[in-house]
């Protein structure tokens, strides 16, 4: 029976094929059958995790606590030099100069990307805004969040900083950043589940040596990564503790 691998559903469409290429590379490197299952939503992915159907995951930091503490996953690696940061942006013609200029009742476009949404809400707190006094428009992608703001359907939007930077220059010219997070310690990570745990050392070895050969480098390039960096248990626990403080 093959092992099951899944990826946090917030990957950018540009990297869809990259994950399939990575999975093919991984199967060859480990000499194991691994099935890549991609989910349309975090809800569907969490259901599969709860049903113990996942053995390897490129996980959203929001799910790290559940994976480690409830489902026995261990951290493996994180992409080198990448951290999840959020942006709150408005229409370039908006009168809002800072978050505190946004008023209760404001319409905010967001996605179901859990860590980005959470970081966005934290950045709205200084304006005394929370889910009780704002109108949230939950969209399927950051491009649709941008469209909501540009069309005037929403006054502000919450973006993954990387996704905002990847917007077309035309879209960005119609938007303005009010605030960008600088948290630096929240990141996605590859995590291994209990059924695949005996392969942890081999997995770590092949992942960390990907940059040693041209093929491995090419696979990483397709994911938009320069390399993997090992994440130890304590580093992972620290991030989980930090996420816990942000969820209240």
């Amino acid at each position, binding site marked *: 029976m093959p092992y099951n691998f899944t990826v946090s559903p917030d990957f950018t469409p540009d990297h869809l094929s990259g994950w399939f290429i990575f999975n093919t590379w991984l199967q060859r490197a480990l000499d194991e059958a691994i099935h890549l299952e991609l989910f349309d939503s975090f809800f569907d992915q969490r259901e599969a995790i709860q049903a113990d159907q996942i053995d390897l995951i490129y996980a959203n930091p929001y799910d790290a606590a559940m994976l480690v503490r409830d489902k026995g996953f261990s951290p493996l690696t994180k992409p080198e030099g990448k951290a999840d940061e959020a942006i709150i942006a408005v229409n370039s013609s908006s009168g809002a100069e800072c978050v505190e200029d946004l008023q209760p009742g404001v319409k905010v476009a967001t996605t179901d990307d859990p860590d980005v949404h959470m970081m966005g809400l934290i950045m709205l707190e200084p304006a*005394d805004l929370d889910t009780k006094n704002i109108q949230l428009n939950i969209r399927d992608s950051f491009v649709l969040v941008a469209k909501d703001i540009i069309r005037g359907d929403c006054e502000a939007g919450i973006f993954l900083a990387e996704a905002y930077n990847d917007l077309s220059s035309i879209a960005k010219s119609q938007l303005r950043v009010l605030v*960008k997070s600088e*948290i630096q310690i929240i990141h996605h990570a590859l995590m291994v589940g209990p059924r695949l745990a005996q392969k942890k050392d081999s997995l770590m070895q092949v992942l960390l040596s990907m940059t040693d050969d041209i093929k491995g480098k090419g696979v990483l390039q397709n994911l938009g990564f320069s390399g993997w960096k090992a994440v130890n248990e304590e580093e992972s626990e620290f991030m989980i503790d930090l996420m816990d403080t942000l969820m209240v």
Partner: protein
Amino acid sequence: MQNMKPEDIAGEYQEHTLSLFDGGARKVLVTEIESPYPDGRLIVSRTDPAGVITHVNKSFVEMSGYEELELVGERHSILRHPDMPSAAFKDLWDTVKRGETWQGYVKNLRKDGGYYWVKATVIPNVRNGQVVGYTSVRRKPSKKKVEECKALYPTLFNQSERLAHAV
């Protein structure tokens, strides 16, 4: 803990003597200069179970005005401002020692005598069922909540704190 030094202070200051949670005392020098909380940043620190700082992030260093080496190994009360009632910190410790999360608004004292307000969340770090320390994360507070705390905190002072503020 060392007393604050006049040569570190920026601007006119007032002197206070704080009674610390561990029974010690510290002379602090306080100005009226507020440092605004930087947008989008988190101030993060970790302590051992006794409240001794083991880790600070860059934002902590920048906002406190201390060097990282001056902070690690010190008690968290190095940031204690005389306008903060001891009741708030007692509540913090009572809460986290029960294994629960504490959240509140805190006025912190900088090395240069100035201050900054934060919304702080403190959680116990549990490893293999044991509390091995605490993580504290501060974020930008709302002005409205800070104004509420400015009005509330003086009412929470105990008698010695009231006397110290009356001097």
